[in-house]
């Protein structure tokens, strides 16, 4: 199961998580980042990077996570890959 980005990202979108992803799995949606479930290798290195703890470990999915999983899956199909954080660009 892939990691997903939750709604906390909406208030922040710092993008620092992008710099540690070894497979470029983040997608730059309009108002938040999402993780492409087909690209994510479940390494989890992005989770501790997030300043607002928006990244959800699949081991900690709850009933509410279903919407977040769907959102990540859908938005990742139409959003561009983001290779670098805003600060690294």
């Amino acid at each position, binding site marked *: 199961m892939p990691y997903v980005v939750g709604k906390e990202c909406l208030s922040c979108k710092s993008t620092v998580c992008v*710099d540690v*992803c*070894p*497979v470029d799995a983040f997608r730059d949606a309009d108002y938040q980042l999402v993780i492409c479930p087909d690209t994510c*290798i479940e*390494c*989890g*290195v992005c989770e*501790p990077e997030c300043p607002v703890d928006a990244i959800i470990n699949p081991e900690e999915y709850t009933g509410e996570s279903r919407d977040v999983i769907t959102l990540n899956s859908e938005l990742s199909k139409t959003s561009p890959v983001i290779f670098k954080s805003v600060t*690294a660009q």
Partner: protein
Amino acid sequence: MKVEGLNLLEWFVAMERNPDEWNFVNEDFDIRRNVNQSARLLAHEAYVNNNQAALAKLHECLAIIYRNEFECTRVEQVNADRRPIVSDIQSVLEGAMLQYEMQGLPEADISGFPVNGKEYVKWLKKLVSKSPSSVHPFYTRFLSEEATAADVKYYLIQETNLDPKFDDILAFMQIGLPVGQKLELAKNYFDEMGNGVEADVHSKMFAQTLKAAGVEDSDMSSAMLLQSIVSGNVSSCFALSRRHYFKAVGYFGVTEYLAPRRFKHVIKAWERNNMPAHGIEYHKLHVYIDTEHANGWFNNVVVPLVEQDPRIGREIALGALIRINSSARYLDELSDRLGSNATTTA
């Protein structure tokens, strides 16, 4: 305090050329006292007086000591017992090295951790995240976007201080462990052994990667950076001494954890320079496999250790921080040498 009398490095090199001499010298307590004193003077000059030439000599001595421990037995040396003197020197030089590595570490970073295993792992990952070597511009900017094939070759030469002996490090670390931890390290080790397929043995693949990048044996010693040698020596120190096992868990766990994010940029450098596919395959493999290793290491080694005794959490954090800091110094020196200005800690 000056380095006087016996030049430890020259003496060591001479002794290595005449292994039978060790047995005579073991019996000569005047020489042993002199050698011990020279080691102490060298350590003082290197780490108290900040003499870089002395620091280089100290680490060359340690590198010789560790090389003997990591190499296959040579029949001409089976009667040479180095231990009485070498243990003395090793203890003095290692002591100085570790004292330096541990001095000034913030107490909050080595003691303010949760004692629940899973929470500890989260805490440890956050500790890594806030360090300068977590996302170092040597990888994210220089290797990713600027490095030439010659730069990649130079970088790989430095990596020989750890990469090709990681299988042996894992072998040393497994000794005497409880089954759960031993199983995790053994899985990791078997991956290093190519899961039983000789062509897939990682040290062999790394040697082929070096060859693909144009690295010759003669390139090794002349091009080695001091901080690369230091990193190799700290790795050897932690792998070879059972009392440092807990630090080794933190040190090598972080090494596995950081590798995938770094290798992504190494792959980009190989691709951008149209270098042979073998090097790309080797690093791609490690993006995936080191991810599994890091997670297995954290879940099946770190978690039970911290829950066994919270004091071990401090040792693991020490090892992790030593890895983070020595890695940052190494990458800064590498950036300086290659003219990339991609430094973070200077």
